């Protein structure tokens, strides 16, 4: 039916987009879990990461440096946004934060347009070599993406389970009031989580930049997919985000193998289905109101 070689490269392709989705969605998911905000402005840090990668790699010729620069700028930007805007609205309801962060996203897209213009920018692929898996040539760079995503997942798991700050964050996801009652300054935790989220989004943008064209609307294009990943996985669940990111990646790439228009539509159909059957997502728990 479907050629085996085609299938393998499609699976790798799906896993690599899934990795990007995971890196972005994990920030959103953590922010929702701990602070109960929906932070659409993660897409802004994603575009920022990609643009800084483009600029730095143009100057220094090194993508790795560019990605690092992108992460740093994304971290600074998310810190500034958190201090200036989110700190004032943590106690508002979710829809409110969603709209506000959407304003930040649109405004940020405007800033990017101001500095870099409207023209899509290409970023060269740092590793062009191919690796042969069962007779199929697979780009090494895509494998690297998957490895980085898994590393980040492992690192996050260690951070959340083995360090005291990580444990406080996990406790905060269960109940912010109790953590506050223990004498922990939850607003520090919020800031830290927000910066982690922004940095990971910047990382995603920087890593994905060589595979796509860097353009101002790139954040808006990926927004729907990232959201879907978070929703399917269940808001606030890290494991669920990983599973659903790879799931959505596979649906996109295998769907396009079967019938091209499906690539864009199928994930949304799947999301509708999952939501209607299990409204909290795959791994979401029932705690939905603060």
């Amino acid at each position, binding site marked *: 039916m479907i050629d085996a070689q085609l299938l393998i490269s499609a699976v790798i392709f799906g896993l690599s987009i899934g990795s990007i989705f995971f890196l972005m969605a994990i920030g959103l998911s953590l922010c929702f879990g701990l602070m109960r905000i929906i932070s659409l402005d993660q897409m802004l840090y994603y575009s920022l990461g990609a643009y800084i990668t483009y600029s730095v790699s143009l100057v220094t010729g090194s993508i790795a440096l560019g990605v690092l620069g992108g992460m740093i700028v994304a971290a600074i930007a998310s810190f500034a946004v958190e201090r200036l805007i989110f700190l*004032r609205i943590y106690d508002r309801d979710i829809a409110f934060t969603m*709209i506000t962060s959407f*304003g930040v996203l649109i*405004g940020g897209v405007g*800033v990017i*347009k101001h500095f870099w213009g409207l023209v899509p920018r290409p970023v060269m692929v740092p590793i062009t070599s191919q690796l042969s898996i069962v007779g199929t040539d697979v780009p090494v760079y895509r494998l690297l993406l998957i490895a980085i995503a898994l590393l980040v997942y492992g690192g996050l798991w260690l951070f959340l389970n083995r360090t005291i700050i990580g444990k406080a964050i996990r406790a905060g996801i269960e109940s912010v009031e109790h953590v506050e009652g223990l004498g922990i300054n939850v607003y520090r935790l919020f800031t830290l989580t927000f910066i982690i989220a922004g940095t990971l989004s910047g990382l995603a943008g920087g890593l994905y930049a060589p595979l796509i064209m860097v353009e101002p609307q790139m954040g808006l294009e990926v927004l729907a997919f990232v959201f879907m990943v978070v929703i399917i996985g269940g808001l606030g669940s890290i494991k669920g985000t990983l599973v659903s990111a790879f799931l959505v990646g596979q649906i996109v790439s295998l769907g396009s193998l079967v019938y091209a*228009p499906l690539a*864009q539509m199928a994930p949304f159909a799947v999301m509708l289905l999952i*939501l209607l059957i299990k409204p909290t997502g795959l791994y979401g728990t029932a705690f939905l109101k603060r």
Partner: protein
Amino acid sequence: MLNSLKWWWGILLAFSLLAMLRLFAPLPFVNEVLLFSIYTIGCNFLLGRVGFISFGQPAYLAVGAYAAGFYLYYFGTNPYLAILLGVLAGVIVSLMVGPLFVRLRSDYFALVNLALTVIIFYLMQKVLAGVTKGDNGLWFLANIASTPLLDISRPDQFFIFALLVAIAVWGFYKYLDDTLYGACCLASKLNEDKLQFLGYSNFRIRLLAFAIANTTTALAGAMYAIYLGLVSPEIASPARAADPVVVTILGGTGTLYGPLVGALAYTGMKDVISKLIGNWELFIGFLLVFIMLAGEKGIWGTLEPRLTKALFRERNGGSGSKPGISR
């Protein structure tokens, strides 16, 4: 008679001001404002009265537009019938998806609506490309027959038609606000448990509100189709999914004239600012953040109490002549 006049005067005043705007502003601008405000009032109703934030209004806009477009392109020529079909399609689609959607929480609701928009966008762009002509869209400006009384294939007469429709729509929403049903909607936003306790069904109230709001949006879609003379998948573009929400908040969530003021401000800013700096997203984005931080009242929500106060003082003291529109 006097009572009904009192009930209508705010709406009539608002729209006669808008009709006067026709004298100063170019016709496409005024038409755009009218269409956009009809488009937005559905979203305003959902967000302000029922507490549902919807990032999926373009889906219903496209449903109305394509229903009208298919009719005009393949079957007939009567624009009024096309609009009627658009509205009918809106009712059918919103009653189909409504029962599934209105069970969800507000933020999930926003996202499944966004998903529906993406699905409809790709449905129209790729899957049904044989019927919808894909990205090229359906062009049927020449197919629209001129109608005897009000020839809405001409932009200047379309303006009158849109104005009449808008007055009817606003009258309807004002009427809704006054009824028991309107109170129930607000109650289901504020405290659904208590409403249930009183013996009302949250589900039915929300479903009806969902159907009403999205039918209005479909009506706007059908009118867009007639006005532009074409429909293309662009109308359901997910990139513009937040426009109605932005306009709703800009104007003032839950206020009757918010969508009108918001659409006016939004369209105006889009025109003026894109001429000045060519980067109006920057402005809109930060304006949105500013409005949210300043208390999410929006332009009309801030202006209304002051105008009412000014008007009240005017009646007492008789000084000042700035006309105010008040609910």
